């Protein structure tokens, strides 16, 4: 069995599971946000449930439209708050929270080998810590809050082996954009993407989160990376009391794969994905010159501390182009504080960026930087679908933080090397 199958077998009380089988698995953690939890709560109540299976294993994070952008979103968040008071489930208020997929790992809520479901498609992010985590719907969350269980189909698995050394300015974002470009937006539909190889072994934790975050953009059910010393040192920091060890079983020799793909990362240049699909990824050089109106650096994909460090390393060299707005969104309160302590915020402010509180905001066209007609943005987010950041005629290009920052300075899509002195 591969890593995912082992976790699924363990959570469904079976010795073995095989692709295509339907199982009912126990869940270690359930997540919902201000958009998806209200529907889940309504279903929960409609079913006449009087208690949740385990309040400690349910986490509600208001992040999409918070700090609430309008009366209706305020009413939705109120439902989460009230539900959490009534049933004792975890609720992260703004000022102590952030974007769910950056927050949960940071809070030490995710451990290797666990099974996590979330009513948000980017729940797949936690595979970076060696957990099985996948996005589901609100009704799934309602049902799991009652039963502690979820129905799943055991996915087939794709093994990706990344070899070679990364070029300068190339991070996890570029590797995953390149991969999606290679296999397509449904290249891993219904499958596990197990990310392996020497280039993954040396990849920092934040970049691993970025990669697993975007496996859904290839249609995958989950992405997963075998825990190693990098995982361990991250977990020692965020969850010191949990005493995680590395006696973790890897894949068995008889693990079967639907497909194996080797990718030499030394050939990958910083990537940009043109609208309207994340699979439209090519070297940034092919887009140099594309005019932009707005730059967004943030989101559950690239709003972590190392992303802000990378952006700041570029913004030090200049000011935001007069015809461009640059928006920086630290993904969580803690990241905000750390960035502040390191002096990154000063760099952003001096360069003429605006800093938003932690929120999904413009990533889904919610608030804090929505695009008008025909406007063009380059963003470190994960989706460039039609109308994703605003008007249906607006456009989003996806990139890593350095490319986004360099583009902010140039007023057009630019390679980071263009702005270095």
């Amino acid at each position, binding site marked *: 069995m591969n890593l995912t199958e082992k976790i699924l077998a363990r959570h469904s009380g079976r010795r073995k599971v095989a692709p295509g089988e*339907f199982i009912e698995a126990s869940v270690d953690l359930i997540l919902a946000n201000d*958009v*998806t939890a*209200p*529907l889940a709560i*309504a*279903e929960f109540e*409609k*079913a*006449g*449930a*009087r208690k949740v299976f385990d309040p400690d294993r349910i986490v509600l994070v208001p992040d*999409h*439209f918070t700090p609430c952008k*309008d009366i*209706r*979103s305020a009413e*939705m968040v109120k439902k989460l708050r009230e539900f959490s008071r009534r049933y004792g489930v975890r609720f992260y208020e703004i000022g102590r929270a952030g974007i769910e997929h950056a927050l949960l790992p940071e809070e030490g809520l995710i451990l290797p080998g666990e099974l996590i479901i*979330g*009513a*948000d*498609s980017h*729940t797949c992010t936690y595979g970076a810590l060696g957990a099985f985590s996948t*996005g*589901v*719907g*609100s*009704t*799934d969350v*309602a*049902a799991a809050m*009652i*039963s502690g269980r979820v*129905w799943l189909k055991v996915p087939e698995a794709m093994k990706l082996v990344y070899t070679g050394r990364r070029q300068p300015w190339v991070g996890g974002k570029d590797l995953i954009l390149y991969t999606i470009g290679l296999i397509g*937006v*449904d290249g891993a*539909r*219904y499958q596990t993407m197990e990310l392996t190889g020497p280039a993954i072994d040396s990849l920092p934790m934040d970049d691993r989160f970025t990669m697993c975050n975007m496996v859904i953009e290839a*249609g995958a*059910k989950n992405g997963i990376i075998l825990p190693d010393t990098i995982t361990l040192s991250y977990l020692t920091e965020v969850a010191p009391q949990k005493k995680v060890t590395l006696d973790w079983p890897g894949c068995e020799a008889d693990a079967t794969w639907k497909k194996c793909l080797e990718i030499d990362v030394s050939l990958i240049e910083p990537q940009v994905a043109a609208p309207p*699909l994340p699979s439209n990824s090519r070297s940034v050089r092919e887009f140099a010159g594309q005019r932009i109106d707005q730059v967004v650096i943030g989101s559950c994909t690239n709003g972590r501390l190392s992303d802000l460090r990378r952006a700041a390393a570029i913004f030090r060299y200049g000011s935001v182009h007069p015809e461009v707005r640059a928006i920086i969104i630290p993904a969580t309160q803690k990241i905000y504080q750390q960035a502040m302590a390191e002096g990154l915020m000063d760099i952003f402010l001096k360069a003429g960026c605006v800093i938003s509180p932690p929120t999904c905001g413009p990533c*889904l*066209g*919610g608030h804090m930087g929505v695009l008008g007609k025909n406007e063009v943005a380059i963003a470190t987010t994960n*989706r460039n*679908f*039609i*109308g*994703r950041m605003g008007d*249906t005629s607006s456009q989003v290009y996806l990139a890593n933080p350095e490319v986004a920052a360099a583009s902010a300075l140039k007023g057009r899509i630019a390679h980071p090397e263009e702005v270095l002195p």
Partner: protein
Amino acid sequence: MTLKGKVWTVGDHVNTDEIIAARYLNTTDGKELAAHCLEGLRPELVKQVSQGDFLVAGENFGCGSSREHAPLAIKEAGFSVVIACSFARIFLRNAINIGLPVIEIPSAREIKEGDLLEIDFQKGKIRNLTRKVEYTWSGYPPFLQELIESGGLMKWVTRKYIGSD
């Protein structure tokens, strides 16, 4: 169960932002969501569909976010079934969980806008009355069939977990 309806078509990789844009997600009211169904793709469509019509799509229908508002908007807009060459997985499970029948057949592409279809769920047959062709469909795996027959996930869970409380 046999359903008869008129077809409306969309293409490949129709994503959840196109089905229901995020700016409308500050409500969970199905009727309100339905008013903006597929607005990003075919803004005029919701006004033209009649109760019971079918939506037919290409590959990877419903990719993108996990918003259950997407199948909900489609259901409330009046579509009784979605047929596609393939579905994105979260959309598929959401549709099944909320009781919106979805049918995956590779030849969905041959079905054209305006065609009249008759779907026989028991026999797994789709008859294109306009073009006089018939497609077969293998039905749902037994687990999903049980879920659907219980009336959706909540009914299934309620019976299993709350009924015995």
